[in-house]
């Protein structure tokens, strides 16, 4: 058992247990934290495969930016885990849960079966890579030649999402403004009444 295997086993265990904790913990903030733990462990796995850039970007983008937003939203909504999420389950809900879990399980088994017993993938295929595999240069080259079209499409998708978010928040602001003015009118009315009385 060499150092690589030990690192793999430890980080794989951390990744899986982080993911399990994410869905099983009742406290949403702790869920976010275990997801971050899982992501960091996954980054270690990527780095071990030689994909240094992907590993670093996984931490920068997911752990460093997206999960901060998750945490921010959870904190703003002030979810403290006291709510009994999913305790009041009716038979219909319960049966749906079991059905979906079964489907996922079957899918999982099927994927593993296909992956392991296909026969043409030798073990240790991960180590057979070129010299600059996973480096910034090779990733950039692929991104800007073979995969340029999907890359640009993704950026357009993200842009439209941003614009959509801005539009929605603007509309909300306009609505609350009218609400506020209505309240102000009411306030002035009541004041006048007070003065009259």
């Amino acid at each position, binding site marked *: 058992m060499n150092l690589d295997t030990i690192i793999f086993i430890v980080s794989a265990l951390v990744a899986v247990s982080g993911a399990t904790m994410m869905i099983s913990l009742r406290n949403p903030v702790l869920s976010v934290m275990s997801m971050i733990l899982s992501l960091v462990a996954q980054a270690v796995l990527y780095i071990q495969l030689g994909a*240094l850039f992907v590993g670093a970007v996984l931490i*920068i983008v997911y752990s460093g930016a997206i999960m901060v937003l998750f945490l921010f939203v959870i904190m703003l909504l002030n979810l403290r885990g006291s709510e009994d999420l999913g305790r009041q389950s009716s038979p219909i809900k319960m049966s749906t849960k079991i059905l979906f879990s079964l489907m996922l399980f079957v899918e999982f088994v099927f994927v593993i079966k296909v992956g392991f017993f296909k026969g043409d993938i030798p073990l240790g295929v991960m180590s057979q890579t070129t010299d600059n595999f996973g480096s*910034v240069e090779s990733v950039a080259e692929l991104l800007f030649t073979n995969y340029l079209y999907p890359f640009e499409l993704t950026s357009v998708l993200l842009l439209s999402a941003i614009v959509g978010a801005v539009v929605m928040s603007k509309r909300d602001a306009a609505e609350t403004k009218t609400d506020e003015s209505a309240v102000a009118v009411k306030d002035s009315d009541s004041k006048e009444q007070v003065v009259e009385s």
Partner: protein
Amino acid sequence: MLEMIIISSIKVIIVVIAVLTGCAYSTYMERKVVGHMQHRIGPSYAGPFGLLQPLADGVKLIFKEEIIPDNIEKTTYLLAPAISFIPAILTFAVIPFGKDTSFFGFDIPMVLSDLNIGILFVFAVTSLGIYGIVLAGWSSTSKYSMMGAIRSSAQMISYEVGYGLSIIGVILIANTLSLRELIELQMGPLWGTITFLPNWYIFSQPLGFILFLTCAIAETNRSPFDMAEAESELVAGYHTEYSSMKFSMFFIGEYANMIAVSSVGATLFFGGWHGPFLESFPMLSVFYFVAKVIMFMFFYIWLRATFPRFRYDQLMNFGWKVLFPLALLNTMVTAYFVIL
């Protein structure tokens, strides 16, 4: 193999001790410098020139009573100081602090780990530091802490973009992400022609440097961007409910972050350990590096003594409407010249 492990362990221990001592004496330097800027003399009782003051502070903080409030989220409350402290220390894993040297016949590279994505590592690790602040604020169940945490996460999200973009110019010119190669590229005369100036990237990237410095101050939550712990509005911000050693963990974390950012700035824009007379005295390189870091730290303290705090909305506006477009512009112009 065993030799390598022993040498690395010794280096790690030396670096961690050096960083912690640096943190302790940064507090001394801060109090002394701010004191003199305000026509006071600063700490002067403990030892000559008050040099033992950090030691006295440390002892005081350890022996203070530790108060843990009742209605807190225990797990995250206890984890938060460690989470804010560890990423700050981790940054030093990739920063080269001297010219490679040999000691008792062993070749010793003066960097803990020479990653070829060094800068990305630094940014990945520093982006994790915010969780300590956010969790501290959230788990304290106190309004002031919560406000501090929300402010700091909003601030981090806004400034991380500019922070990342501000160094893209340097990366474009250098065409590498390895900090060791970046320092090697900054040796020699400026642009290969001007002999009396070194080829430091501050000369090629002045705008990039200013953006980096501004965003770095916002990233480390220092004055004038210290909204997260604005003591005149929020008591102490996110660490209001912490006491004793837990409080000092945040304190050390903040200073370690400042030293880390200063080291990154010195490496990217001021040639790292590069300086004159290195051929005859290679150990001077460590001195040059430390001197450059101290220069950055002095600048931090100078700013704190000079500028009033930004208002919260001004801060956000400044980040998105001034720094971000300027960083984009800097990237575009640099890319244009690199392609030429």
